């Protein structure tokens, strides 16, 4: 158990390190002069040279990488060119919105997917099952940003129940919550389509197993067998998918924030791209990749917690 834990943690740290190398390499070593990218083609040679010196571009890549990682580990991601403030401050300011969006999206996804997937499995081959399978098949093929537009067309443009986009700020909690409803639903619908399918097939797989027959033979009701015996065992493969989906949801927020004009990290990264604000883009991409890696690590830990057989195997 301890061995497995150490191994996983070590792998996690190494992956984070590798991620930082990849991001740094992609943004600094690929052909292209960051100073030129930032200042544009009409910049004077003097200005370019000054900026190169300021960015430390004259140092060898390894030194620059170490400087960047070293500072990043202390929470210092440099100064944003376009905003003129530390990147860490920008992140801190915009993180709450993105996190609330991702977490609420995940909660809705899991709740909807478990309910639909288990219901479909329990009614295998009947109309309800077909409906869930059909909707989830379609759902997998619908781009989240298009779904958002359709929801805006219906609920904001036609019915005028909800705002079409924008964010009033956290000072008005009710309005803030209303502003997050459509983005959350857009994020969750597509992901829950995927998860409902996985839940259904995982539950069907478990239902064929001997201990489910034992539970029925012990006189437990269908409902109890389903929720107390089938679901916990069916959850094991589901946990992996949920981890991958959390990663997809977090990057999904990048798209959704741009659809709904929400001032979160996803919107920030696009503002940074159009302002050629390299330090900000670099920090945000690293952050997003780190969230993805962390989500997978947490899934590994959850596995250890859920499945007693894994503890024994190590």
């Amino acid at each position: 158990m301890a061995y497995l834990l150490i191994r996983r943690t070590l792998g996690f740290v190494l992956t984070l390190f590798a991620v930082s190398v990849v991001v740094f390499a992609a943004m600094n070593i690929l052909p292209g002069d960051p100073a030129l990218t930032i200042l544009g083609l009409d910049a004077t040679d003097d200005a370019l040279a000054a900026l190169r010196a300021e960015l430390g571009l004259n140092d060898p890549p390894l030194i620059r990488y170490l400087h960047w990682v070293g500072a990043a580990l202390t929470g210092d991601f440099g100064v944003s060119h376009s905003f003129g403030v530390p990147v860490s401050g920008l992140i801190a300011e915009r993180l709450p919105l993105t996190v609330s969006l991702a977490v609420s999206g995940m909660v809705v996804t899991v709740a909807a997917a478990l309910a639909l997937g288990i219901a479909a499995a329990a009614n295998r081959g009947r109309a309800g099952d077909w409906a869930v399978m059909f909707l989830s098949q379609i759902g997998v093929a619908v781009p989240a940003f298009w779904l958002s537009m359709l929801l805006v067309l219906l609920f904001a443009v036609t019915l005028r129940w909800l705002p079409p986009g924008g964010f009033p700020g956290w000072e008005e909690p009710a309005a803030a919550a209303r502003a997050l409803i459509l983005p959350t639903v857009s994020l969750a619908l597509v992901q829950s389509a995927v998860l409902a399918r996985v839940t259904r097939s995982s539950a069907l797989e478990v239902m064929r197993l001997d201990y489910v027959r034992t539970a029925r033979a012990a006189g437990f009701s269908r409902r109890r067998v389903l929720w107390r015996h089938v679901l916990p065992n069916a959850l094991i493969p589901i946990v992996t998918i949920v981890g991958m989906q959390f990663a997809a949801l977090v990057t999904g927020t990048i798209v959704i924030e741009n659809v709904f004009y929400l001032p979160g990290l996803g919107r920030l990264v696009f503002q940074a791209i159009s302002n050629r604000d390299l330090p900000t883009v670099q920090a945000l991409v690293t952050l997003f990749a780190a969230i993805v890696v962390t989500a997978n690590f947490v899934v590994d830990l959850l596995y250890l917690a859920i499945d007693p057989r894994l503890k024994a195997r190590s």
Partner: protein
Amino acid sequence: MIEARALSVGFGPALALREASLSIAPGARIGVVGESGSGKSMLGLSLMGMAPDAAEVTGSLTVDGVEMAGARERVWERLRARRVAMIFQEPMSALNPLKRVGETVMEPLLVHRGLSRSEARARALALFREVELPEPEAKAMQFPHELSGGQRQRVLIALALACDPMLLIADEPTTALDAEVALRVIELLVRLSEERGMALLFISHDLAAVARATREILVMYGGDVVERGETEAVLAAPRHPYTRGLLAARPSVGDFRRPGAPRRRLPTIPGTVPPLDLLPPGCRFSGRCPVEIARCAAERPPAHEGARCWLAAEGAA
């Protein structure tokens, strides 16, 4: 008291169980033998109301005088564990891998008996002692994968006993176990049946195990009960050709003990059990039977002194 009258389980026209009749009194110990596909497991499952959803169950089945044929799942749920309990072949996979075995045995006590957690725990430990699970307190805290096969089977027996059923159906309970362990599980089942006055339906393809565990026996082939009677009598003087074939195909201890003795080839019943939908309409064994007569394939033989065989019936006439 459980009575089955002409109980059939069909998948379309194919019958997995053909008009089986059986009455089980308190304390009775009945063996059911046959090859896989003989319908012996289907008989056990249908006594639990657990025949597959696709199957059509006909005939009559009464439990304590209440007709259960066509009963809804809800009604069956109230009978399972409390009147009729069942254990299965694979103790490996028959226990929920995510639950400590103590919790598994406590669950029916909490759900069906409404005991408090501490009462249920005490009762579960008492059950573990009754089935001679070693170190019950420690074992109760373990997960199924941490127990041996024999210990798992004991846990399953404890689970089945939790609500004091009047009938325990044991479907191949010893097949997956080592010979030594299997023997002790059989002894346990016999003792529990005697001490509790609980009936035991012991389903197995292992004649030696059935001989040890039971007083009455049903021999099944192709969904049909082909012979029945007292276990000792049937095994000593089988009347049905299939039972005779089954007994002849069994290796006896003596075959292996005499060094230097000429090796005897085990006789086998020629052919294999046909699939359900290709069974002959008359005696299910016709086609493989060494002493078959003309009418066997087309007409179902009547039961004569326990054996469903035209030869036995006509020999008597």
